[in-house]
């Protein structure tokens, strides 16, 4: 494997954003994901190689470690920041169409629910899985989800809820989406959500953790 790609992957895995970032302490004064991604492109590494051979595997390792409780939310967010600093250099290639992502993923916390941490973790892991993420935020109405689907045809949809009292709204949104877009794929998650509930409301997949969501999306494009 290319040495610089390996270095970028390490920066992302351990959350080294750029040279001036003091975190993690044992990587102080070294180049971060920002500088390395820029240099890789200058040296002629293809943007899709940076995505597929550095960012995606690094974020997969982050997801696995989170699932095993070897790292926690703050470390995941550090990794996401490092990933974003590398991803910023790839954006022009995404926009020009030179580099293609695996697909689009619309995500939001359902109506009445303001909890965003779980939703954000899923969004960043899926972006780190090579997808384009459209994050609608929290307290997202059914209409807003439907509007985003019109705008991004074929996107996979992810719904998050943290409260038993807001799960009802998940059901309403799933029904409305399935009615309009019968072939759409909907992923649900959040503390009170279960596989049984997912089946009951007619959603397609229940992910107990962010890595589960990434793994499911992989099966859709395999």
């Amino acid at each position, binding site marked *: 494997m290319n040495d610089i790609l390996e270095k970028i992957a390490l920066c992302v895995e351990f959350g080294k954003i750029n040279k001036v970032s003091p975190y993690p302490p044992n990587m102080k004064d070294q180049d971060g994901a920002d500088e390395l991604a820029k240099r890789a492109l200058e040296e002629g590494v293809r943007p899709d190689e940076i995505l597929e051979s550095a960012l995606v595997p690094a974020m997969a390792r982050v997801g696995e470690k989170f699932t095993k409780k070897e790292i*926690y*939310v*703050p470390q995941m*967010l550090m990794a996401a920041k490092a990933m974003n600093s590398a991803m910023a250099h790839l954006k022009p290639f995404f926009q020009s169409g030179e580099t293609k992502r695996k697909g689009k993923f619309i995500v939001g916390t359902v109506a009445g629910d303001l909890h965003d*941490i779980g939703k954000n973790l899923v969004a960043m892991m899926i972006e780190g899985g090579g997808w384009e993420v459209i994050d609608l935020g929290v307290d997202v109405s059914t209409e807003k989800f439907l509007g985003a689907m019109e705008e991004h045809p074929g996107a996979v949809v992810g719904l998050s809820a943290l409260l038993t*009292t807001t*799960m009802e709204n998940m059901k309403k949104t799933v029904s409305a989406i399935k009615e309009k877009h019968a072939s759409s794929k909907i992923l649900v998650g959040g503390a*009170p959500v*279960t596989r049984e*509930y997912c089946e009951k409301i007619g959603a397609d997949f229940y992910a107990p953790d962010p890595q589960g969501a990434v793994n499911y999306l992989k099966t859709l494009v395999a």
Partner: protein
Amino acid sequence: MKTILRGNTREVIIDTDGPVIIIGECINPTRRKKLVSTLQESDFAYVLELAEMQINAAADVLDVNVGFPGVDDVKLLAETVLAIKARFDIPLCLDSPNPKAIEAALKVAGGKCLINSVNGEEKSMNALLPIAHEYGAAIIALAMDDSGITYEPEKRLAVAEKILERAVKAGIKEEDVVIDPLAMAVSADPRPCVVSLETIRLVRQKLGLNITQGASNISFGLPNREVLNSVYMALSIMNGLTCPIANPEKIATTVRASDLILGRDDYAIRFVEISQANGL
């Protein structure tokens, strides 16, 4: 300032100058899937088990939340309240986003309950304040309104003041308004706990009201959660928290220790008692 709550006969006084009152949080289906399956079959044995466990662990008041998808919580909250009241004489904190469920529960609850919660949105205040007044209930005023969650303590104080003012206009006594400064996880952003602690200090200083907070989730996404929750609890008590909503099994010792250190436990009677009860 004293907020007095009542079970069938037993009174609990939440006093801004007295020891901390613990509102037990465990009757809540969000993290207890067994509560959903038992309640779906109108089986209250597990609810009563949770009530007893919390009372034995020093809960003074019990929060009751039975909201989950597919449930008629107007019926179920009232039924659960009746089941608890038949066995235990303890004030209840009725926890539902549905004003109709709160009203139905107040109709059968008797005593003097706490409503969890009224926020600063017009819809919430219009629906709940008249009900609280009619049934003589105290309310938890959540420092959040239509404009969402703010990270400025002064703005949270302003929302609390707004709800207080409206509550008093609706005929509710000032002492029956308990403020919730809103606690959020510290794992994704370092600000929320500092903001809540400062809001608690401001509410205590400017309004002098009792203060509650459901804070077991501030440690979400981090290791060693019990230590984090305990430290946050102690700092909150220092700033003016008087009636946290928490799991008494995990937090009661921290609460008693805070009371002792703050000079509210003569001869350390309550601290020694709870320590010995836990074999410490």
